[in-house]
């Protein structure tokens, strides 16, 4: 793990109007290293989105409630920094892409340029970046459309583009492809993986365990606002009792288990497609 760029210490948060006074986050501790691909999983209501909001400073600066502990981004405490300053370091792609829109832009092009404009980037440079991101996200054919007229999947591409265009060194993705078709969301994750290879730190919330297992260097499991495990995909999923975390392991683990039960496989529990295929081929020969 590279030097920590995200440091979360004893973080607790309770929303002001929480009906049962329940803490959305309860004494959370973890670090994310520079260049790491860090995934967060857990059932709905376990605190994943609240945690994302805490990382980018929306908590405590936007959502009201009681926060304890600290979050540091590149050593800067989010409590003493502003959302605007934090946005130069860390970007968030929201779960609901419509929350990402500025609602002031008349076209996709303007939407992509919105953040850059606020940052005072020269027009020429801005247009260059908009063009590049539009091509990358495959939205260059809808640049003149109103963002509110797009399909869910298209808005998610725009939302992702408008976060990515700000060139944050840390990118937080909160279930950001739920409305995309299967290969469309794979395409987005291929882009994310490429970004990650260039050194960008990625923190990703997702319900697709096969994808999480494939992408993650480490996985953190949240349950009821608490951290129940932080480890590599192999350690998190690679045991038959991984369901005890209230999550489903990728199908690959079940295949390995079934092969073991038949006595024709004695290797480790695989969590990715290619090694599982190799394991099945091997078991066929035995």
């Amino acid at each position, binding site marked *: 793990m590279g030097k920590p760029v995200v440091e979360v210490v004893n973080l607790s948060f309770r929303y002001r*109007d929480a*009906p049962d006074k329940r803490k959305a986050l309860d004494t959370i501790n973890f670090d994310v290293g520079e260049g790491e691909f860090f995934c967060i999983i*857990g*059932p*709905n*209501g376990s605190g994943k989105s609240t945690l994302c909001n805490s990382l980018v400073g929306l908590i405590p600066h936007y959502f009201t409630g009681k926060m304890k502990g600290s979050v540091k981004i590149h050593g800067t405490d989010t409590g003493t920094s502003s959302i605007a300053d934090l946005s130069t370091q860390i970007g968030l792609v929201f*779960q*609901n892409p*419509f929350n990402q829109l500025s609602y002031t832009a008349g076209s996709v092009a303007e939407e992509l340029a919105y953040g850059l404009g606020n940052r005072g980037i020269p027009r020429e440079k801005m247009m260059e970046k908009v063009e590049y991101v539009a091509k990358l996200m495959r939205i260059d054919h809808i640049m003149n459309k109103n963002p509110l007229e797009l*399909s*869910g*999947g*298209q808005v998610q591409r725009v939302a992702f583009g408008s976060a990515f265009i700000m060139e944050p060194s840390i990118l937080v993705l909160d*279930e950001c492809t*739920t*409305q*995309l*078709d*299967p*290969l*469309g*969301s*794979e395409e987005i994750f291929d882009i994310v993986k490429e970004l990650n290879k260039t050194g960008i730190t990625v923190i990703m919330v997702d*319900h697709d365990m*096969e994808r999480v297992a494939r992408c993650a260097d480490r996985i953190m499991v949240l349950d009821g606002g608490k951290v129940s495990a932080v480890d590599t995909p192999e350690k998190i999923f690679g045991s038959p009792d991984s369901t005890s975390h*209230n*999550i*489903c392991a*990728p*199908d*690959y683990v*079940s*295949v390995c288990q*079934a*092969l073991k039960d*038949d006595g*024709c496989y004695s290797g480790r529990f695989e969590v990715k*497609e*290619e090694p*599982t*295929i190799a394991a*099945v*081929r091997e*078991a*066929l*020969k035995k």
Partner: protein
Amino acid sequence: MTIELQNLGHVYPTGDKALNNINLSISGTEPVAVIGQNGSGKTTLVKHFNGILRPTTGHVFINGEDVNNRSTAKWSKDVGYVFQNPDDQLFLETVRKEFEFGPARIGMPPEKISAQLSFVAKLCGLEGKLDIHPFDLAATDKKFCTIGAVLMMDPQIVIFDEPTCGQDVEGNRRLCYIIKTLESRGKLCITISHDMKFVAGNFKRVIVMCNGNVLLDGDLKHVFAEVETLRKSFVSPPPITRVAYGAGLNETVFTVDEFMKVFRARKENNN
């Protein structure tokens, strides 16, 4: 229950051609999944089943009646439509009011409403949450609130647009349960989904849309065996299906049990 599409075409006012000459017939109560890439016409297609959209060309018949005969409001007691985005659908201050709104509007008798309310609340896991404001519900429950509000009218046909979007393990389980329960009560569920595991686990008939056309239509196994054709619509088979193909088992499987059956047969053959 029948839905009959004859040469259905749809062109949006913007001039975008969303559906080309679709011929399709759905009957019975076996749940149907509609899959395909973004912008392929899935939502446009199903919005014709209760008249939210009207055919530009061709005809849509629901149980033999031309969809153009009635307004969407008049169709709502027969065909329920659960929107993709819960925020597009919810507007009242409690779950109970959301649930009671539809049936009251279509003139359902009060005693039937109250019986339906307890059935639907239980089915959707919202029994203890009827007096909560829908916007205070967690994302999962909010989705089930929109589903419940539609089921309250006891429609014969229920359309789900992307119900799995943002659901966790528990939410997915409940959705499966709802679809099975509706089928057992003689309802027809038509579901748009991008979640291939969910599709493989719950549906027998799958319709694949691509560029406003029906690319494939048939039995689940038959459809997911067409890996190359599926690619055209940005769909790939579920993980376990891909592992079986990748390992050269050359059969379409969707569960670990099916997988092992094929695996053992192959192994026996090899020896």
